[in-house]
């Protein structure tokens, strides 16, 4: 139970960050012609930002299901790496049902917060960690879709920085302590920036950009700083 409460506590900042992002998603979905119910249903079943935003764009333009499936696959492929990374952190005896339940909650932020935990990861902690973000993500979508204009534009835009400030707060402390981590972050940021602004890569979706940056930067990291036994 203490593990669950700890998870809930660690999940609160993620939940708050999610409310503003999913609020924006709710607004966008509603403007795109979706009902409040279907907007919330998408958030509840998908629990992912970039994938949902891209999905709405495709649904709005009546894209084929194949196009939708492919875009979802590419943008969310990074979860494959995260899920693999997480598989290394749980006790080997953790059962299949528990793994199936936890898999649902793998998002960038939940993953990042769970990975910064020094104590061994447990099922109870992870479920606790998932709880509030799921509520925040669906609730924020509902608020955004339901009252598409409660917040003044300036406030809504300003909340856009919340999620990124959180990412920064997650990666800076370890980067301060570890030179290799700092270097990998810098490499990843550099590649991501190049892919965003060099015209040659203009056709690249955000999902691909993140996948490519991650694989190259982590690959360089693995090559330069292989992990010694017992670390």
């Amino acid at each position: 139970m203490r593990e669950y409460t700890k998870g809930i506590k660690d999940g609160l900042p993620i939940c708050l960050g999610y409310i503003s992002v999913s609020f924006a998603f709710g607004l966008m979905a509603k403007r795109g012609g979706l009902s409040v119910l279907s907007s919330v249903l998408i958030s509840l079943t998908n629990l992912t930002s970039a994938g949902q935003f891209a999905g709405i764009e495709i649904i709005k333009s009546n894209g084929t299901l194949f196009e939708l499936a492919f875009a979802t696959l590419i943008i969310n492929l990074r979860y494959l790496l995260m899920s693999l990374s997480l598989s290394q952190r749980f006790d080997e005896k953790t059962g299949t049902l528990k793994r199936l339940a936890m898999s649902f909650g793998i998002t960038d932020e939940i993953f990042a917060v769970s990975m910064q935990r020094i104590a061994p990861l447990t099922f109870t902690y992870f479920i606790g960690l998932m709880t509030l973000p799921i509520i925040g993500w669906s609730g924020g979508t509902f608020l955004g879709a339901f009252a598409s204009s409660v917040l003044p534009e300036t406030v809504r835009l300003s909340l856009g920085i919340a999620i990124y400030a959180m990412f920064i707060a997650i990666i800076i402390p370890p980067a301060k302590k570890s030179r290799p981590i700092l270097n990998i972050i810098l490499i990843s940021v550099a590649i991501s920036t190049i892919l965003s602004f060099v015209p040659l890569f203009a056709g690249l979706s955000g999902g691909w950009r993140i996948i490519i940056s991650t694989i190259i930067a982590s690959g360089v990291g693995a090559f330069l700083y292989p992990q010694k036994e017992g670390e």
Partner: protein
Amino acid sequence: MNNLYLICAVITMALITYFIRLLPLTFFRKKITNPYIKSFLNFVPYAVLGAMTIPDAFFATGSIISAGFGIATALFLSLKGKGLLSVSLISCLVVLILNSILFQILP
């Protein structure tokens, strides 16, 4: 937009997203011992978050100027060892103040 299409679309997105998430965690139980792969997986979260933050954060607030100050605030506070929630809230506040001023001058 008809309902059948919408339902199929939601299910397609949900199933694909879920399968990507569950495959490695559910079916990969062995501990990886290869030092290169272990190191690679350890770097993944940092690389992912870095790539997602820059450059996108600069375009998240409707003004590169306010976003830039928001990012700088977050960096500064994180270096000072502040927690996730306070870093996030104070950065939002900084951006909100700047946006309120900027959107007055540049309508």
